[in-house]
């Protein structure tokens, strides 16, 4: 039965269980997970938050990564940087990030007893953990370390290579012992270098031969090895520590196998550490054993020599002879043992040991770049005299060429450019007066000068002529000669030089000398041994616009020259005076100066190595060249012997070879011209290390490739002179050299007199708190006290500081301190010793452990990055400093450069997650965004109940007000009038109670029914009364009331007989039933009196009623006066017509007819029939008051009370109101009166009953208004 374990309690549960039977936790996997940082819901399958990049499940993520690192192996895991919580400041807590072995200096090194860093065993120090546990993931991860050794490649390529290599199971390059000492426990035994046979004296000699600056660079390499472009991700020490040497057996690290590996990402050049470098990288003389993996430090030809016989044709000439003469002693397991010491006697140890074979070594042939080894080989066989014909043929058929002019089958050139290069040499014909050695020397120089661009034609001509006339073999002469064949030069240039040449041609300001100088890297110039002659320099009169390389190297060498640590050749070449003189001389010659002046140039400008060549030449060939003589005077053998002991054996060897006419190792150009082997004996060139020569060509290629990058990154660096590729060097050394070149270029900018003084180089910033002087002092402090601090180191350290600041590399880690035990400090590299000491001192001064002051950091934060953040120990940084540091653009650039390799979608996802929180916090505006206005809690009350995510207004307003933006807050909260009205209305509706609206709707149905029944009852009663009076006229004996006014009316009617009488029908149809009877009574009376009726009306419908009344009464004569508008005004106008003296106009201004007007003037009576009080009053006031015409008023019962006062005062003769007055006036039947009387009595009765009823019951509520 399968079981599943609860994630919460770990208890077993049956498969299919939904909840844990032990703790009740849900066993079903959730499809979502919430980011602990931003609370964003992410899918369960995501490792990092889709919103902020935070690792969603840190534990699971670490487990996954560790598992993937352990199992998958092929997926490089990018490192992560320390995280900082949002809003949190202060120094990063890197205490937990530093591995114990690095923090305490206690390294479990029981597996590497031979290493110099023989740190305390964990058993002794009490540390029981494995150092690997303390290492960051990226450091432990063995697949992600190859980038350091492939610094010339992008980070992507690095990881790809790592993946490829991991898949193929190829072994990697061993580490030097001094780096092995830093290897934590668990990384396995590191290979030991086979230096057992080297005695201490030898080692010491090698160390002394190494320039201090180089040694320092090498020692600092562990701090700076992450190159600016790619290798930044890890330190060399960290990477070396990760190398799986422990898993690599000696057999696996077979050098030959390693070097012949064509598809190996680790090129032979990378693996070919020179022994001097190896010795300087920390191998102590006490190291007696080394693994075979160290054999990759040797070239192929050399590594194979101890196990198998190296074909003579693959050996260099100088070695071939030695081998044939005295076979190499049997070599046990150490390639160094079988190293032909005889050969090295004539050259410095470090040069001799690093000298590669003349044959193209595998490690160089594997490179995609032009095979400079072959080039060197061919260059040693510089065609002389008779071979020029063959070379011309080779020019025509560049792919086949007999390199040595022998009858050997034609070799296939390594590259097309090589053939063209040789063709160029053929084209550049040497001077006829040249001897074989002279020719060789000139060929080499011509090779150098062939790189030159255009030169002033006149200068070239004069100089070439002068050189030819005087048999001058100086560099200037050859340069001039070579410059004549500009066309051939361009044709002969290899592809990469052609491109470079084209680019330079576009730069009109760049002289041909610049090109030459640009083609030679600064480090090569610096390292040029004596005898290689002064490298072409820009024209002094025509200062080359920014040849930082040469200038930088000059500046640097100016200081280096003062160092006693420099080898003689380097000291001479670095002599500022010599260089300046050389430059001036070269420039003068280059400008076509007088040949006489050029004669002195070699004396001052040619370095020792060239001087030695010339000296040998003078001794052997007895040249009459004044230049050579001058060169000879320049060379002071005593000085060489006294100050440059290490070079004396070389010189002596050269002399011997010259005396012997040796062809293999030709130090001087005095070899026989006819000797085929002498074609390659251009001593000056020969004296250069092979990797130097290889780097010289490769550098140009890389220069061309990285031209745009350099221009972008280092604006003021000028054209292509900046070089950062040193193919002859191992990768890690190549990085250093490249960075050095960049730094030197920057120095040139700052030190160049023409350029603005102390101009800040864009993009280069010193890390705050990191003083270059500190590094300098610290580095010099750990050096031998007996060694004088070279002033040249200042410049170098400045360059390094710049580089460090730009890269954030751990040069400043020197100051980062940690508690290091004394024993460990001794075994650690000096820079790391300083770090540990500083940290220890800091901890002691603060009274707390140094690590305790560190706030926080990521567990995978590399040491060098920690140091690079502040330039000094973070424990020394204050909170503000750290913030400032974090805001540095350089840091951002650095972080941008730390982008993980692009390996598809997974890499993209991981790359986002690489940005830690503390860097995210640096994003502008994050503080404002931190204000969380959203309240995810659902309100429990109010209109928004149950709606989460509602914006909390109060915090928003508070935040605004807190920011002093009260005005903004006011504006934001301003409401319009409409909104205010809406609010008021809403408040009223909310607060107002139930309003009882009176009316039927609010009444009870029973109430409404009762009311209707009541009204219906009233109506029924009235109708009953009316019908009863109509049906029973005699029911009530109602006689017409004796009305006094009837008599008055009858009198007035009688008096107005046969006179016009104005009858106003001012009533509406509504009251027609009440007045029609009176109208009929008056009309009948008027008709009876034969009066002329002039009728009019102020009501529109009155005329219709008048017509009807006229029709019913049939008066004798009737005149329609029409409608009288404007009430009182119209009546007043009408009143004017009553005066017979005034012309009467109609209300419209139209004059009335004469008869009408006369009738109006003669009107004897006015009868007003109206049911409206106002109308009656108007008539009385406007007409009755103006004239004495008697007025009779026939009105309704309602108007009677109003008319009564006017009747009392005599203004109205009589008021006849109601049906009774009409009946009395007209004498109609009394039936209507009976009905009316019954109805009135009924009404009175209903009023009384109603009053009593409501008096008892009470008044209805709805009527209480």
């Amino acid at each position, binding site marked *: 039965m399968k079981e599943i374990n609860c994630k919460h309690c770990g208890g077993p549960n049956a498969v299919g269980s939904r909840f844990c039977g032990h703790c009740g936790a849900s066993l079903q996997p959730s499809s979502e997970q919430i980011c602990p940082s931003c609370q964003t819901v992410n899918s369960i399958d995501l490792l990092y938050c889709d919103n902020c990049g935070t690792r969603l499940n840190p534990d699971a993520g670490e487990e996954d990564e560790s598992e993937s690192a352990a199992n998958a192996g092929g997926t490089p895991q990018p490192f992560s940087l320390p995280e900082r919580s949002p809003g949190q400041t202060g120094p990063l807590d890197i205490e937990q990030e530093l591995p114990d072995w690095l923090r305490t200096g206690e390294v479990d090194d029981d597996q590497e007893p031979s290493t110099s860093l023989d740190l305390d065993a964990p058993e002794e120090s009490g540390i029981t953990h494995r150092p690997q546990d303390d290492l960051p993931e990226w450091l432990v991860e063995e697949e992600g370390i190859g980038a350091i050794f492939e610094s010339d490649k992008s980070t992507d390529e690095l990881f790809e290579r790592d993946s490829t290599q991991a898949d193929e199971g190829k072994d990697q390059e061993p580490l030097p012992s001094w780096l092995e000492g830093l290897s934590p426990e668990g990384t396995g035994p590191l290979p030991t270098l086979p230096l057992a046979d080297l005695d201490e004296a030898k080692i010491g000699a090698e160390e002394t031969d190494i320039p201090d600056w180089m040694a320092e660079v090498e020692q600092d390499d562990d701090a700076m090895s992450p190159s600016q472009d790619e290798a930044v991700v890890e330190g060399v020490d960290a990477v070396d520590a990760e190398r799986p040497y422990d898993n690599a057996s000696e057999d696996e690290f077979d050098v030959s196998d390693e070097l012949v590996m064509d598809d190996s990402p680790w090129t032979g050049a990378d693996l070919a550490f020179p022994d001097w470098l190896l010795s300087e990288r920390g191998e102590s003389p006490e190291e007696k054993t080394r693994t075979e993996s160290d054999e990759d430090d040797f070239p192929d030809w050399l590594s194979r020599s101890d196990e198998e016989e190296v074909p003579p044709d693959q050996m260099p000439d100088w070695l071939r002879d030695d081998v044939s003469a005295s076979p190499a002693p049997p070599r046990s397991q150490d390639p160094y043992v079988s190293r032909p010491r005889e050969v090295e006697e004539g050259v410095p140890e470090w040069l001799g040991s690093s000298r590669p074979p003349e044959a193209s070594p595998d490690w160089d042939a594997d490179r995609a770049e032009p095979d400079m080894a072959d080039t060197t080989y061919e260059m040693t066989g510089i065609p002389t005299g008779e071979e020029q014909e063959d070379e011309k043929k080779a020019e025509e058929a560049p792919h086949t060429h007999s390199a040595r002019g022998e009858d050997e089958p034609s070799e296939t050139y390594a590259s097309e450019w090589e053939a063209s290069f040789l063709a160029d040499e053929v084209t550049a014909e040497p001077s006829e007066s040249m001897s074989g050695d002279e020719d060789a020397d000139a060929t080499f120089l011509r090779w150098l000068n062939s790189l030159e661009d255009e030169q002033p034609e006149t200068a070239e001509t004069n100089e070439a002529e002068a050189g030819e006339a005087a048999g001058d073999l100086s560099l200037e002469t050859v340069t001039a000669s070579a410059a004549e064949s500009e066309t051939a030069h361009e044709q002969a240039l290899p592809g990469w030089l052609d491109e470079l040449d084209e680019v330079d041609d576009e730069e009109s300001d760049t002289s041909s000398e610049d090109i030459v100088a640009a083609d030679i890297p600064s480090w090569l110039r610096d390292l040029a041994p004596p005898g290689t002659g002064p490298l072409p320099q820009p024209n002094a009169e025509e200062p080359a616009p920014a040849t930082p390389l040469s200038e930088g190297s000059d500046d640097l060498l100016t200081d280096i020259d003062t160092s006693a640590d420099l080898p003689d050749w380097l000291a001479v070449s670095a002599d500022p005076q010599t260089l300046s003189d050389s430059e001036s001389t070269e420039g003068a010659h280059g400008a076509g100066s007088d040949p006489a002046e050029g004669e002195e140039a070699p004396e001052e400008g040619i370095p020792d190595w060239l001087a030695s060549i010339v000296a040998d030449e003078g001794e052997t060939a007895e040249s009459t060249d004044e230049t050579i003589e001058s060169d000879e005077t320049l060379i002071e053998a005593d000085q060489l012997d006294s100050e440059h002991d290490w070079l004396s054996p070389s010189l002596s060897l050269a002399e011997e070879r010259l005396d012997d006419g040796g062809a293999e190792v030709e130090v001087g150009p005095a070899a026989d011209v006819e000797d085929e082997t002498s074609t390659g004996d251009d001593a000056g060139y020969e004296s250069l290390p092979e990797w130097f020569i290889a780097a010289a060509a490769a550098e140009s290629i890389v220069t061309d490739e990285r031209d745009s990058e350099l221009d972008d990154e280092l604006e003021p660096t000028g054209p292509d002179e900046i070089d950062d590729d040193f193919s002859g060097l191992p990768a890690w050394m190549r990085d250093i050299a490249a960075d050095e070149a960049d730094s030197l270029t920057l120095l040139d900018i700052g030190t160049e007199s023409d350029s603005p003084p102390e101009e800040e180089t864009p993009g280069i910033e010193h890390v705050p708190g990191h003083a270059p002087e500190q590094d300098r002092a610290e580095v010099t402090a750990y050096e031998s006290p007996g060694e004088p601090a070279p002033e040249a180191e200042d410049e170098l350290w400045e360059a390094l500081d710049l580089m460090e600041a730009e890269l954030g590399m751990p040069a400043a880690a020197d100051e980062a301190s940690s508690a290091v035990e004394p024993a460990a400090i001794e075994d650690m590299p000096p820079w790391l010793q300083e770090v540990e000491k500083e940290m220890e001192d800091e901890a002691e001064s603060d009274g707390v452990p140094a690590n305790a002051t560190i706030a926080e950091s990521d567990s995978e934060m590399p040491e060098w990055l920690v140091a690079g953040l502040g330039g000094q120990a973070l424990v020394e940084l204050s909170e503000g400093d750290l913030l400032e540091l974090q805001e540095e653009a350089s840091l951002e650039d650095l972080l941008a450069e730390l982008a993980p390799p692009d390996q598809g979608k997974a890499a993209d996802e991981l790359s986002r997650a690489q940005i830690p929180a503390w860097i995210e916090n640096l994003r502008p505006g994050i503080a404002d965004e931190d204000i969380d206005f959203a309240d995810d809690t659902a309100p429990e009350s109010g209109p928004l109940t149950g709606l989460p995510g509602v914006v909390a207004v109060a915090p928003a307003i508070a935040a605004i007000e807190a920011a002093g933006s009260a005005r903004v807050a006011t504006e934001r909260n301003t409401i319009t009038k409409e909104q205010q009205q809406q609010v008021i209305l809403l408040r009223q509706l909310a607060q107002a109670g139930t309003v009882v609206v009176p009316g039927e709707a609010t009444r009870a149905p029973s109430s409404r029914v009762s009311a209707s029944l009541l009204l219906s009852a009233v109506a029924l009663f009235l109708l009953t009364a009316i019908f009863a009076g109509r049906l029973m006229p005699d029911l009530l004996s109602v006689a017409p009331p004796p009305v006094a006014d009837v008599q008055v009316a009858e009198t007035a009617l009688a008096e107005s007989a046969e006179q016009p009488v104005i009858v106003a029908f001012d009533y509406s149809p509504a009251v027609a*039933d009440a007045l029609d009877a009176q109208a009929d009574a008056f009309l009948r009376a008027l008709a009876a009196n034969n009066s002329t009726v002039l009728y009019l009306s102020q009501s529109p419908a009155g005329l219709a009623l008048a017509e009807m009344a006229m029709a019913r009464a049939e008066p004798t004569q009737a005149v329609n006066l029409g409608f009288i508008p404007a009430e009182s005004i119209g009546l007043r106008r009408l009143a004017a017509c009553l005066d017979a003296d005034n012309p009467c106009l109609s209300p419209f201004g139209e004059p009335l007819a004469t008869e009408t007007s006369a009738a109006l003037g003669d009107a004897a009576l006015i009868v007003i029939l109206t049911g409206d009080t106002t109308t009656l009053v108007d008539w009385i006031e406007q007409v009755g*008051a103006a004239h004495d015409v008697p007025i009779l008023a026939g009105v309704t019962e309602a108007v009677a009370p109003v008319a009564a006062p006017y009747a009392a005062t005599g203004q109205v003769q009589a008021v006849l109101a109601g049906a009774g007055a009409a009946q009395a006036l007209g004498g109609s039947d009394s039936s209507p009166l009976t009905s009316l009387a019954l109805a009135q009595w009924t009404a009175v009765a209903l009023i009384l009953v109603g009053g009593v009823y409501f008096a008892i019951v009470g008044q209805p509520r709805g009527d209480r208004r």
Partner: protein
Amino acid sequence: MNLEFVGTVIGLILTLFIYSYVVGDNPLYRLAVHLLVGVSAAYATVVAVDRILLPAIRNAVDGGTSTNPLLWLVPAALAVLLLLRYVRPISWLADGPVGALVGIGAAVAVVGVVAGTVLPQVAGAAQPGDFLSLLAALATVFALLYFHFTSTAPTNENTAPWKAGLSVMGRSILMITFGALFASALTTSIVILSERVTFYFDEVASFLGLIQ
């Protein structure tokens, strides 16, 4: 069946619709009311046009007998200005004609009231020996005093007794007056009802041959 009979029937139906209000507001009542108002307005319009506007236009166009036809431009302009009252931006132009109407009407009314009501009523009440006239005068004073004291200071405990008595007298007179007016109005209504019922009764009886 002549049109008068049809008219009488329609009148009867509409009358019943109006009286249907006794049982409450109903559409029949509203229909009858609306017909009454509409017909009345239409009739008034027709009368105004036929009796006022057309004669005026005819007089202005034909030259008529008026002394100066251009005089019609003044009332015409004032009428147009009155219509501008409904045009809000220039509604103020209607203020002039309205002011003229109100002013002239008020002036005419005042003159008529003074000359036709106040002075004759005062003169009639001042006749000695007429109790009714004196009563009418006192009733008038009391009514005026009632509006005077009640308008400024309502009667309360602190009001002077005589003032309260005058106020009560004036209020009583008003109530009697309003009662008399209401009774008069009711009487009028009853008269109208009686007349209308009697009319239709007669018509129906006559139609049915019940009566002659």
